[in-house]
C-alpha cells in the first residue's frame, strides 16, 4: 500500500516531490497529497487518511495537539528556514518611521515568531512568557506606534512594497522573484532547531518501516538537497538542513 504524505505548497512540497520520485524508482510507493491549508493535513493524519505529513514544526504540532486532542509525534527533522523582515523603503530598522506600517503573518505560530523577532529587534515588547504563541494582543510596548496588518504567508511578498516593514519567508520571495531574499533587515537565524519543519506521524507509528525508508531516502538524497538549495535561491544563509545539525 502506498505511503501517503501530506504537504502544503512551496519549497517543502517540492523537496518531498523530488524524494517521492526517487522512492518510486526504489520500488517504494508514495502518494503526495498537497493541502492548500494548514489544518487539514493534521486532520487527515489523525483520520488515518494520510500516514505522515511534512509542513509543520514541533511547536505548531504541539499547539494543534493541545487544541484538537491529536496524538502525533515527530518522526524526523526536515528543513529550518531563516525568515526575516524585509523593507523596500528603508535600509535599516532604525529608519522605520514613527507610526510605520508592518505586515506580519496571519497564522498563529508564524505570527508569534515574527513578533518575537520584532521584540529581538527592539521594536516592540511582548507580554512576559508568551513566547512563540504571542499575538498582536500580547504587545505591551510599541514605542514607534507601529501599525500592524495581518496577511497570509504568500501574500506577504505582494504587500511588501506597500508597507514599511514586512515579515518574509525566503522561499516565497525566491519563487516570486520580487526582490532579493537575502536583503532582509533582520533574520530569525537558524539556531532554534525546534522550528524546523519536520516529518510528523501519528504517535506510535513513527517506526513504520515505509516512513523510515522514505525519511532516510529524503535525508540522504543529493537530488533533494539540490532542490532545496534551489528553492532558497542557492543561498546557504536562508536555510539549514535540520537533520544535519547536531
Amino acid at each position, binding site marked *: 500500500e502506498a505511503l501517503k504524505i*501530506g504537504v502544503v*505548497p*512551496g519549497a517543502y512540497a517540492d523537496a518531498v516531490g523530488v524524494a517521492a520520485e526517487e522512492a518510486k524508482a526504489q520500488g517504494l510507493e508514495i502518494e503526495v*497529497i*498537497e*493541502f*492548500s*491549508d494548514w*489544518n*487539514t*493535513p493534521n*486532520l*487527515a493524519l489523525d*483520520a488515518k*487518511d*494520510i500516514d505522515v505529513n511534512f509542513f509543520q514544526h514541533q511547536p505548531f504540532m504541539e499547539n494543534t495537539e493541545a487544541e484538537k486532542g491529536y496524538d502525533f509525534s515527530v518522526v524526523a527533522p526536515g528543513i529550518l528556514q531563516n525568515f526575516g523582515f524585509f523593507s523596500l523603503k528603508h535600509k535599516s530598522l532604525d529608519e522605520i518611521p514613527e507610526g510605520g506600517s508592518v505586515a506580519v503573518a496571519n497564522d498563529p505560530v508564524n505570527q508569534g515568531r515574527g513578533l518575537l523577532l520584532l521584540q529581538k529587534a527592539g521594536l516592540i515588547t511582548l507580554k512576559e512568557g508568551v513566547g512563540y504563541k504571542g499575538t498582536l494582543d500580547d504587545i505591551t510596548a510599541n514605542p514607534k506606534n507601529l501599525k500592524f496588518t495581518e496577511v497570509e*504567508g*504568500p501574500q506577504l*511578498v505582494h504587500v511588501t512594497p506597500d508597507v514599511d516593514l514586512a515579515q518574509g519567508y525566503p522561499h*516565497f520571495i525566491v*519563487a*516570486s*522573484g520580487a526582490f532579493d531574499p537575502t536583503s532582509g533587515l533582520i533574520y530569525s537565524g537558524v539556531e532554534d532547531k525546534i522550528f524546523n519543519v519536520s516529518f510528523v506521524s501519528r504517535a506510535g507509528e513513527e517506526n513504520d518501516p515505509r516512513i523510515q525508508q522514505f525519511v532516510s531516502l529524503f535525508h540522504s538524497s543529493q537530488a533533494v538537497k539540490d532542490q532545496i538549495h534551489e528553492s532558497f535561491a542557492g543561498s546557504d544563509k536562508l536555510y539549514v538542513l535540520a537533520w544535519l545539525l547536531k
Partner: protein
Amino acid sequence: MSPQMIDRLIGAFLDTLLMVSASAGIALLAGIPLAVFLVTSGPGGFFPAPRLNRALGALVNGFRAVPFIVLLVALIPFTRLVTGTTIGVWAAVVPLSISATPFFARIAEVSLREVDPGLVEAAQSIGASRWHIVRHVLLPEALPGIIGGFTITVVSMIGASAMAGAVGAGGLGDVAIRYGYQRFDTTVMVAVIVILVALVSVVQVTGDRAVRRLRAR
C-alpha cells in the same frame, strides 16, 4: 512546462470535472425542492407554513453566512461519515454540494417567484394538487430562469472548487492557487486560467443555448 505538469493539469481538469459535476448534480437535486419549498410555503404561497419556512430560511442563511473554509472543516465529521475519507475529490464534493445547494436554492427561488400566479390558478381550477402544480406549472414555467441560475451556480462552483485544495482534492482552481499564488509560477497559472476560462465558457454557452431554445418556442 514539464510533462509532469501537463499530466498534472490533465488530472486536475478531470478532478474539477468530477467535483463540479457531482456537486452540481447534488445541488440541483437538493436545491430545487428547497427552492420550491421556500417559495410555496412563504407568504402568498399556496402551501403556507410560515414557521417551517422561516426555520428553513434561517438554515439556508446560516449555510450561506459561514465562510467556505470554515464550513469545509466543520463538515469533516459528516464528510467522513458519507465518503469514508477526509481527503480527495469525494471529500470535497460533500462541502461543495452543501454550500452550493443553498446558493442554487436562492437563485432558483428568484425564478420560481416570477411565475405568473394566473397559471397557478389555472392549474388549481383543473383540480391540480400542490405536487401537480409544482411539477406541471412552477418548474416548467420557471425552467429558463432555473437553467440560467444553474449555469451561474456551476460557474461559481468551478471557482469554489479551487478551495477543495484544502482537503487535498486538487482540481484546476487549486493548481492555480498552488502554482500561481503560492509558488508564483506564472506559466502554470496562465495555462490553468486558459483551461478554466474555456470550461466556464462551455458551461455558459451551453446554458445560454438551452435557455434560448426554451424561449424560442
